[in-house]
């Protein structure tokens, strides 16, 4: 479970205030969509939740562990074991094949040769890319590359999946395919999922939607069985 308390992030010695006093509780297995205009702090929030950066003030707790206070090595271990990332521009290693790209997520866990290869191939099969394991990223379409990236994020069976604009570089048909894929893995694996998106179609599938504006977070319910405005949260602007 994520618990963010009073999270503030400043850049340039306080000249830029990216996040202002964010409070958020995110139970295990929940899907949160974060929307908002460009440059209002969505990606910064995702980075703090992924342990890629530290808040200037406040705490980001994952299962009771404050990611902001962990050493670099400990934060790296948390990322390696518990958090999967999906990026807008896929961020695949261009020289490695699809299966080798997926293997990069298992390498820091010490999974060896054949076992690593087997698990990576299975992960690719799960995203319907069993016939593309040997292909280089440049030989795959955008949708296929994003599916490789999703397989890479999921192969280590993380508790959390953080996706930053996962459909941002895709056409409409491919976008639907990727959203469907994310939704199915979320349901099957009971992942805690945070998806930063501009896309209302993506946001509609999430249990809750948060809106970032000027570094402040407002949460709105999008699914009748889960969401409700958190007490004290600002209304979306």
């Amino acid at each position, binding site marked *: 479970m994520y618990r963010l308390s009073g999270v503030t992030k400043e850049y340039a010695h306080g000249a830029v205030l990216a996040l202002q006093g964010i409070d958020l509780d995110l139970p295990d297995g929940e899907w949160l969509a974060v929307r908002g205009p460009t440059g209002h702090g969505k990606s910064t929030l995702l*980075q703090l939740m*992924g342990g890629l950066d530290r808040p200037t003030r406040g705490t980001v707790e994952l299962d009771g562990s404050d990611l902001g206070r962990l050493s670099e090595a400990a934060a790296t271990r948390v990322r*390696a074991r518990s958090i999967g990332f999906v990026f807008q521009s896929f961020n695949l290693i261009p020289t490695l094949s699809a299966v080798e790209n997926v293997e990069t997520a298992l390498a820091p866990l010490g999974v060896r040769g054949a076992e690593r290869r087997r698990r990576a191939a299975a992960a690719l099969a799960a995203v319907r890319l069993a016939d593309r394991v040997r292909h280089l990223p440049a030989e795959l379409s955008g949708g296929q590359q994003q599916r490789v990236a999703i397989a890479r994020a999921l192969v280590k069976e993380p508790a959390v999946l953080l996706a930053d604009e996962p459909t941002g570089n895709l056409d409409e048909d491919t976008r639907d395919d990727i959203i469907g894929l994310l939704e199915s893995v979320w349901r099957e694996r009971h992942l805690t999922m945070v998806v930063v998106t501009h896309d209302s179609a993506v946001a509609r599938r999430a249990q809750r939607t948060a809106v970032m504006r000027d570094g402040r977070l407002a949460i709105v319910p999008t699914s009748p069985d889960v969401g409700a405005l958190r007490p004290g949260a600002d209304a979306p602007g």
Partner: protein
Amino acid sequence: MFWTYLRRELRRRMRQAVFIALGLALGIGLVITVTSAATGVQNAQATVLHSLYGVGTDLTVTQPPKQGAGSGISFGFKQQIKQVRSGQIAAGTKINDNELQNTQYGSLTAAQLAAAAGQEHVTAATGALSLTDITVTGTVPPLSAGSGTFSSSFTTSTFTVDGVDVAHSSPGPLSSAAVTAGRGFDQADATGDVALADSGYAAAHKLTTGSAVAIGGTNFKVIGVVTVPQGSSPPNLYIPLAKAQQLAVTGSAKMTGQVNTVYITADSASNIPAVQEELTKLLPSATVTDASDLASQVTGSVGSAASLANNLGKWLSVAVLAAAFGLAILLTMAAVARRVREFGTLKALGWRSRRIVGQVMGESLAIGIVGGAAGVALGYGGAALIDKLAPKLSANVGASPAPTTVSGVTGKLAQQISSAAAHTVYVTLTAPVTLSAILLAVLLAVAGGLLAGIFGGWRAARLRPAAALTKVE
């Protein structure tokens, strides 16, 4: 994963990797070539020094010649010139003057030799005489107005003779010689009129075992022919020291019981400086020379080649190597800068900085090793080229007696006489690629790769994942 990633990355950056490897190869190849050439020059110098010193000699002791003693003109001939001028010898008189002269060095007494032999750390000390046999023949020309030039009227022939201690051949002039015909000296020859001929001189003058040769006015029988290693500058003939002492003169003075060169062997290389210091104290007017002193006196193309290898070659190698290292570092850092997104992603996936640094260093090392291998090949090529193209080197050792003018005898005649004392040695330059040169190349390649990897890795390690990923956006 490490090897797959490394291989694929190098393949992606093939052109850059080849460029870096070639730069390193050039630097390393140059280092090997220069090192090999320097080894070749050292070998050539050692050959020259051995020929002058003899195997087993650590130090030589010589005495500078007394002022005016080493003119190279036979004392008898000088006297005859005076007699011609005073009218005691008439024009048309035939002159045939033959003397065994000590022209190069001053003399050392038997007591001085014994004192040198008695020094601490001295295991052997052998005396010898380096001499020149000078024969002047001709007919006295008519003198006009009391002056004239004699040189055109006389023929001078010279050859070099070493008087050697037959009881102690090493250290000494014969220590590196091998008998190719007849026999060498034995104790019974100590006072005999017997000689050994150098093979080159014997061939040129058709001397064989049993031939007779006149030395200092005495007939000697050649009992053997000896050869010395290539590059040596041996005397033309060797005779027993005792006989040489009987016949030799310094100016007009006999050299009975005297030597002009003492060959010293020290008990260990580390004690050579101490022995040299003691001998210098013991014989303050003498010149005590060790191998390095002698090497510094070597002139000619061997000296030039040594200077070229040690100075220009060394600095050229350093410059090219530094440029190659700099290039490798800059290109590696540039490659890391281009891969910020890649490394940021890997950090997001849980790759530790150490692993990423290891990956960058692995890639740099691989390039370095390829460059090193290519450099070794280039180095072998360069060394082979030197072997093939290098001219014969000459080494001139020891100052020849200065040309002199004595009572109307021009410098030409004096030069003719003194030339026999000059040590000019010809050696073929080779460039042997030694194991140490190869090891040096491998070390340099690894160092070049490591250095580039360290800088590149350092840059990669400093990347904050969030910042790296932000750049992507």
